[in-house]
Each structure stands twice: as structure tokens, then as C-alpha cells.
């Protein structure tokens, strides 16, 4: 249907094309500098100029805008050109559909600075929107649902921003940032629901912020985690501030094994190091609201690196060979260390609002809790035992977290991701049809974490 609005969009886009084509010596196509990160490339329209998104992407040059019209596109798009902006004119009506046959909706492999905006990916066996091996990425106003692994997925990538987006129906995680340190990335204003994990980040951290977002009705909410099944272990320094995290006990979501293991917890750093968890509102969980727990990894690929390696960047460690397999035990434990839990409001947790546990002496792991509003903790009175300022005191064995219960409980099996709920319409990007290209060269930008307050409950 060719509506008046669409016609206006086409005219404006055509004007942009002409403007770019007539730019003469002032044409800075491919240069992402200037004001903000706007690029002065050309606009390639789908389906007007190209039948498929892939054809437009293949024809595009750095700085260009691929503008996708309303429609359903049965494509798995590969992007290998730097500094593209790929945008739908309507988030809810520009739909990439994998038909449960294709693996990734849009995959950016090694192309720096690619921004994807204002569209939906559904019914893919792998991932919805996926960046791997890039410096500079941005996903804005994206929707994913019914996706076989991750909804919005950034792997081995740095300098990123995922914002104003929605993900549901993934057995692993709705949003994922993994294998990066320092990541230099932000997740801001996203909603993640009906996934195995709302957020998962394996072996990521360092200037990694998850803020102002909602994680609800997943098996578990926000789960930074460590394991040698990806490189750059362990998870380090993930900052989680100002989020709404509730009712992550959903028994019928798709879920991989670790999501089943994590079920019933709001914020669950699993073997994470140095996470900073502040000013979140967390409620209605069958196990813990905020739980610092170990992650047992069987058949690991490597041993746990020593704490003195905590500051080693991913670029340095990921090329190193693992330990001799003969010296790697059948099971390694990634214990939570030096995590900070401050100023959160946590309630209605059936096991404990705040918890910390370990397979070794938990009192010596440097985790701390202060200024939280909560009713229960495991061990008891955890803010006296492990305050973030001063010296703790008390009995760590009183009311200690029973890890056996966490591990042994049998949870409802995974649901079928192909049958997960279809979301309602999501907010559109402003001026999608007319805004200039904006490749991901200024990301993640500044974030004022200190100004973020505990969010109110939704009405």
C-alpha cells in the first residue's frame, strides 16, 4: 500500500539522494566525522532501488544509509562494509523473517561502525541482530522475537550502544554482550521479556553499563557470567544501574540449560568479578532478588585465571593458548568476587532479597552490600557482614545461601521459542524516513550514571 506518508518519505529520501549526489567537493561520503556522527553518504532504498536489503547493503559504501520500506523480508543479511546505517522506515512494519530456516537476521562481521535502526527480526534460528568482531556498533529501536539463540547480540566487539529496543522469545538471552574487556558499551532503555535470560554477558565488562531498562518475565533477569566456553574470562566490571527487574520466574519461556539453572533470580552475577549493582528496583522472584553466586563449569576448556590477571584486556588474552588439557580439572568453579551491591530496592524474594554464596570461604571474596532496602538476606544481615565501607562483622554461617538448593532444583523444561508470544507495537524511531545516516562512530557516548535514580514501579 503506497500511502501519502510513504510518498512523503520517498520524496524526502530522493531529495537526500540528490543532495548527496550533488555534493561536489563538499561531499564527505564515508567520513563519519563532522557534527555528531552524521554521515554524508547516499541513500539506498529498498525496495525502490534494490529488491533486497542484502543487495542494497552490498552496493553501499561507508557512510551510506540503507533505508528499508515497509514489508516482510525473508533474508539473512550479511554486512561487511564499515560505517553503514541500516534503517527501517517503520519499526513494526519493516520485518525480517527467517521462517525458522535462516540463522541471523542482520549479521555484521568485522565491519566497524554499523548502525541498525528501527526494524524487527523474527523467526531466526540463530540471532536477530548480531555484531561480531567490530569496533563501533549501535542498535536502536530494534525488536526481536522468536529467535533461536540471542535477540540482540554483540560478540567480541567494543564501543557499542544498544538502546530503545525490545527482545523476547530467545532461549538464551534477549540481549547479550560477550567476550570483551574493556567493552566500552551501553545498554540503555531496553525491554527484555519471555527469554531464557533477560540479559546475558559472558566474559564481558569494563565500561559496560546496563541502565534504565526493564527485565521481566524471563527465567532470570540480568546475568553477567563467566566460563571458558568463550574467551576473555572472567566477567569483570559490569555496571547495572537504574533498572526494573521483576517476575523473572516465567516457567514457559524457551530456555537453555543455564537459563533453567538461573531461573527465579532477578540480578544474578554468576562467577562475575567486580560488578557494580546500584539503584535498581527488583521484586517478585522465587529465589533471590540480587544473588552473587558461583558458576560451576563442567568439562571446561581452561582453568580460572588468577585475580592478578583481572585487568588484562581481552585483546591480550584471547590469543593465548589455554592450559594443557591434562591440567584442566573436570569441573571448575567461577566464584563471585569483589561485586558491589548498593542502594537497590529489593522485595518479595522467596529465598532471599540479597544473597551471596560460594564454594569457598565466601567472607574472603570481597563482595559487599550497603544502603539497600531489603527484608531478607542469605547469609543473614549481609550488610553488617560485608559493608562496602568499613569492616564487617558477624557469623557468615548463619542463614548461609544453600547452593545445593539452587543447583538441584528441577525447573520446568524449555518452551518452544517458535511459539513464544508476539509483542505488540513498539515505539518508532523519530523521523526515521528523513533523518540522515548516523553510523556508530560516536558510541557509546557519555552516560551520567550518578544521576540515575531508583526507578518507580510501573503503574
Amino acid at each position: 500500500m503506497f500511502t501519502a506518508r510513504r510518498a512523503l518519505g520517498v520524496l524526502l529520501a530522493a531529495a537526500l539522494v540528490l543532495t548527496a549526489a550533488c555534493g561536489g567537493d563538499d561531499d564527505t561520503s564515508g567520513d563519519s566525522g563532522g557534527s555528531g556522527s552524521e554521515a554524508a553518504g547516499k541513500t539506498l532504498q529498498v525496495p525502490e532501488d534494490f529488491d533486497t536489503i542484502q543487495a542494497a547493503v552490498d552496493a553501499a559504501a561507508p557512510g551510506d544509509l540503507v533505508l528499508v520500506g515497509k514489508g516482510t523480508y525473508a533474508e539473512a543479511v550479511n554486512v561487511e562494509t564499515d560505517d553503514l546505517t541500516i534503517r527501517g522506515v517503520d519499526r513494526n512494519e519493516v520485518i525480517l523473517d527467517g521462517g525458522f530456516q535462516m540463522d541471523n537476521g542482520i549479521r555484521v562481521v568485522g565491519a566497524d561502525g554499523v548502525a541498525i535502526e528501527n526494524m524487527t527480526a523474527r523467526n531466526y534460528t540463530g540471532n536477530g541482530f548480531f555484531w561480531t568482531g567490530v569496533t563501533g556498533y549501535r542498535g536502536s529501536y530494534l525488536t526481536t522475537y522468536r529467535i533461536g539463540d540471542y535477540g540482540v547480540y554483540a560478540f567480541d566487539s567494543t564501543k557499542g550502544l544498544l538502546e530503545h529496543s525490545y527482545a523476547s522469545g530467545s532461549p538464551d538471552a534477549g540481549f547479550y554482550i560477550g567476550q570483551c574487556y574493556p567493552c566500552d558499551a551501553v545498554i540503555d532503555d531496553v525491554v527484555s521479556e519471555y527469554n531464557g535470560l533477560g540479559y546475558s554477558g559472558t566474559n564481558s565488562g569494563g565500561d559496560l553499563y546496563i541502565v534504565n531498562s526493564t527485565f521481566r518475565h524471563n527465567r532470570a533477569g540480568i546475568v553477567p557470567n563467566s566460563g571458558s566456553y568463550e574467551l576473555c574470562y572472567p566477567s569483570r566490571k559490569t555496571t547495572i544501574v537504574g533498572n526494573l527487574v521483576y517476575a523473572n520466574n516465567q516457567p514457559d519461556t524457551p530456555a537453555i540449560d543455564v537459563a533453567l539453572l538461573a531461573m527465579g533470580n532477578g540480578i544474578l552475577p554468576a562467577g562475575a568479578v567486580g560488578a557494580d549493582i546500584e539503584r535498581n528496583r527488583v521484586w517478585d522472584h522465587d529465589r533471590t532478588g540480587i544473588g552473587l553466586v558461583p558458576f560451576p563449569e563442567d568439562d571446561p576448556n581452561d582453568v580460572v585465571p588468577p585475580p592478578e590477571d583481572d585487568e588484562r584486556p581481552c585483546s591480550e588474552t584471547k590469543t593465548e593458548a589455554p592450559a594443557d588439557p591434562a591440567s584442566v580439572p573436570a569441573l571448575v568453579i567461577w566464584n563471585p568476587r569483589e561485586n558491589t551491591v548498593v542502594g537497590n530496592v529489593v522485595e518479595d524474594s522467596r529465598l532471599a532479597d540479597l544473597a551471596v554464596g560460594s564454594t569457598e570461604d565466601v567472607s574472603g571474596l570481597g563482595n559487599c552490600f550497603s544502603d539497600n532496602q531489603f527484608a531478607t538476606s542469605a547469609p543473614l544481615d549481609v550488610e553488617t557482614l560485608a559493608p562496602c565501607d568499613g569492616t564487617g562483622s558477624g557469623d557468615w554461617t548463619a542463614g548461609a545461601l544453600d547452593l545445593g538448593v539452587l543447583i538441584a532444583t528441577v525447573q520446568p523444561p524449555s518452551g518452544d521459542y517458535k511459539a513464544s508470544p508476539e509483542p505488540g507495537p513498539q515505539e518508532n524511531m523519530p523521523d526515521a524516513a528523513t533523518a540522515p545516516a548516523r553510523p556508530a562512530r560516536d558510541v557509546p557516548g557519555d552516560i551520567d550514571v550518578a544521576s540515575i535514580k531508583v526507578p518507580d514501579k510501573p503503574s
Partner: protein
Amino acid sequence: MPRRRVRLPAAGLLLALVIGTGLAACGGDGGASATGGGTTEAPSGGLSSGGGGDDTPAGAPDDMVVVDGATATVNALDNTFQAPDIQVKPGTTVTWTNKGRNDHDVLPVDGDAWGVDTTGFTPGAVYSTTFTTPGVYHYYCSIHGTTTAGMVGTVVVAG
């Protein structure tokens, strides 16, 4: 499994690239046989002299783990082959194990004489094939890489 990591001298690599004798880079369709299967046709071309006494074929990565035994293993992590680039002798059986949490596949860049798709390479799965013919066999995971970037690896058969 004895392993050692080697880096080709730059001069040797350059010489190999220059005087290589048209080795079937990427291995073509043949040269490997799946475990239990027959040996397939060897790729055309011969082994590069490599220069300076180096018998590493042209097109080989410049940083490989050399495996001296009759078997070699590669772990498929999320989303990396480890070690990504190995050198083995003809007749070596290479085994890939999916030690990640996600599905992967192992697909040759050229041809389909060997490799395993995602249905056969879910987490914990193992795939083996025997490389009989000298050559450079590039491969990749189609979910997490392209033929040249992302989750990619190489088996160099030489010696």
C-alpha cells in the same frame, strides 16, 4: 598430543607466496575423508617448496599450531575455533568438539567433501575427518562467521 606454535619467517612466507606451485589453496573438494568414509580425490597442484627449506604450503596462515601426532583436536568455543590454525601431517585425523553453549557448524570454504552442519554439531558433539592430501583447508562456522572473517579456521596438511 604434542603441539608447538610456529610463526613463518616473513621472508619465507613471501617466498612461498611467490614461488608456490599453484597449490589448491583452500583444499578444493578433496583431500579429506570423513571418519569411516573413503578417501576422496586429492586437490590439484602440488605442495609449495615454501622457500628456505620450509615445506609449509602457500596460503597457509603465518601463525599455526603444529601437531606432530596422528590425531589433532580443535575446540569450537562460542564463537572461536581453538586453535584456529593448525598444521598436521598427511593422514592425520582432526577432531572438532563443540565445547560452546551454542550450535555451530564446521564447513569447508571450498567444496563439501567434509564438514558437519549444525544439526550434527550441537553443544558437546564431536566431528572427525582424516586429511590425506597436502593442502590448505580453510573452514568456517556459517552462523558466526563468513568464509573469511569471524569464526574461521585452517587445517594445513604438510610434511
